[in-house]
């Protein structure tokens, strides 16, 4: 059965077009995804991300349990800060990429991708057993609303009294919006300054309304998953299922730095990941840019001369830059910026060039 966001009726009222996303019916766009994309880059966009999973770990050994369960050193995260990390299998393959907030000395919030929610919840429960911590899946009771874009501080500042100048990137603070408790985080997936508000599902429509109203003079528009995808691609951010999978380790994705071998706790996947680190990856993730308007897309072949050397993981005509951009896995020897490759775009071979990620930086 398709799950609906607590904001579903709000979206219907806004004329949203829905898409099935990991078993959820979510807004793909409201009117024009290009206009929504542009609004996020130049003003602000309002996103419903309630399909994301929120799992809480509390207790004296929550930090140690997470150090064991994830590849990062979560015990080193200060209270009020957040960190990007990964849940890996024993084989080193990525089961999910996630953001972990440390809310208190003994309390963490793990935010996972909707498609991996069950896998993450189960793995955390299993890996935390034996540690003095409690794992609680809060996904059903928590809604997530994001305000992203250069005008987001003005909008969020108008609805709560949190000190936004003190709130750093990848940090969170509890505050109140319209009298309701929310967790306000300066995180996001668009390459812009922005905020994510974790709120009680029951009050999500009210908080959405308060933000929409406060955002009106600042050009805030509701924004769907279609523009979220082109925004994150421009920002060079990986998407699970495209750039990340159980077949790949963080090292192929160029994210080996998230694996902390120096932590005290032994962690799941450590041996396999150490081998991969030492042996070097056979395929690495690169950015590609093209000319013209035809974009390489997920699954298309990357060629070196006549030889197929890799595959596109994500690609689009960049709305901000105006030329095609893509990410792909290629052999390390072909991964240096400036390398000339090509892509088979539905039978026509188009030239592309390897570039450093991200494509776009604010």
């Amino acid at each position, binding site marked *: 059965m398709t799950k609906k966001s607590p904001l579903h009726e709000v979206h219907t009222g806004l004329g949203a077009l829905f898409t099935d996303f990991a078993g959820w019916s979510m807004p*793909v766009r409201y009117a*024009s995804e290009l206009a929504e994309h542009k609004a996020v880059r130049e003003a602000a966009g309002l996103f419903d991300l309630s399909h994301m999973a929120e799992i809480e770990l509390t207790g004296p050994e929550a930090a140690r349990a997470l150090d064991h369960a994830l590849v990062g050193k979560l015990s080193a995260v200060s209270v009020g800060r957040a960190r990007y990390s990964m849940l890996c299998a024993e084989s080193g393959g990525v089961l999910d990429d996630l953001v972990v907030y440390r809310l208190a000395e003994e309390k963490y919030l793990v935010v996972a991708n909707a498609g991996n929610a069950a896998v993450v919840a189960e793995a955390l429960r299993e890996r935390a057993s034996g540690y003095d911590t409690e794992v609680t899946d809060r996904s059903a009771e928590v809604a997530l609303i994001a305000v992203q874009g250069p005008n987001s501080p003005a909008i969020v500042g108008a609805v709560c009294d949190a000190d936004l100048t003190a709130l750093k990137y990848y940090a969170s603070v509890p505050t109140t919006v319209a009298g309701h408790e929310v967790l306000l985080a300066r995180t996001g997936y668009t390459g812009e300054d922005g905020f994510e508000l974790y709120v009680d599902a029951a009050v999500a429509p009210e908080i959405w309304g308060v933000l929409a109203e406060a955002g009106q003079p600042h050009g805030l528009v509701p924004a769907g998953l279609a523009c979220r995808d*082109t925004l994150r691609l421009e920002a060079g951010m990986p998407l699970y299922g495209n750039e990340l999978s159980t077949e790949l380790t963080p090292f192929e994705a160029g994210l080996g730095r998230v694996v902390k071998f120096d932590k005290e706790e032994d962690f799941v996947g450590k041996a396999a990941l150490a081998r991969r680190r030492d042996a070097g990856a056979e395929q690495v993730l690169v950015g590609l840019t093209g000319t013209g308007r035809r974009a390489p897309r997920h699954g298309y072949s990357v060629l070196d001369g006549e030889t197929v050397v890799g595959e596109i993981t994500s690609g689009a005509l960049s709305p901000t830059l105006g030329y095609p951009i893509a990410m792909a896995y290629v052999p390390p020897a072909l991964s240096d910026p400036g390398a000339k490759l090509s892509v088979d775009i*539905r039978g026509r071979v188009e030239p592309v060039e390897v570039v450093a990620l991200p494509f776009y930086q604010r």
Partner: protein
Amino acid sequence: MNIPQELRYTAEHEWLREEDGVSTVGITAFAAESLGDVVYVQLPEVGSTLTAGSPCGEIESTKSVSELFAPATGEVVEINGGVVDEPELINSDPYGKGWLFRVRAAELPELLDADRYRELTEEA
């Protein structure tokens, strides 16, 4: 959904307007809305011969690529250069500035009238 009464339609969501043996072809507002923002369009060449039902170009939106099917057999006599330069015209004005090409067809296949096409979109 805007489905002009005076046009004829194909089940592939194209519209045709016939004048003096030449048919102007475009895609419907329904198709444009389903595709999302169109960012690239490839049209058949002027002078080429189309075969009804065969692919003759493509329309690419931010999320997907769709083939364009020839609605009739005949010669392409004109293409809309404006829509090649500004593919967004397909979204903003599908029945006007967003037209795609003109074909001189010896004979038009059976096409749907506006009411029948509306029924089709309502079933979709």
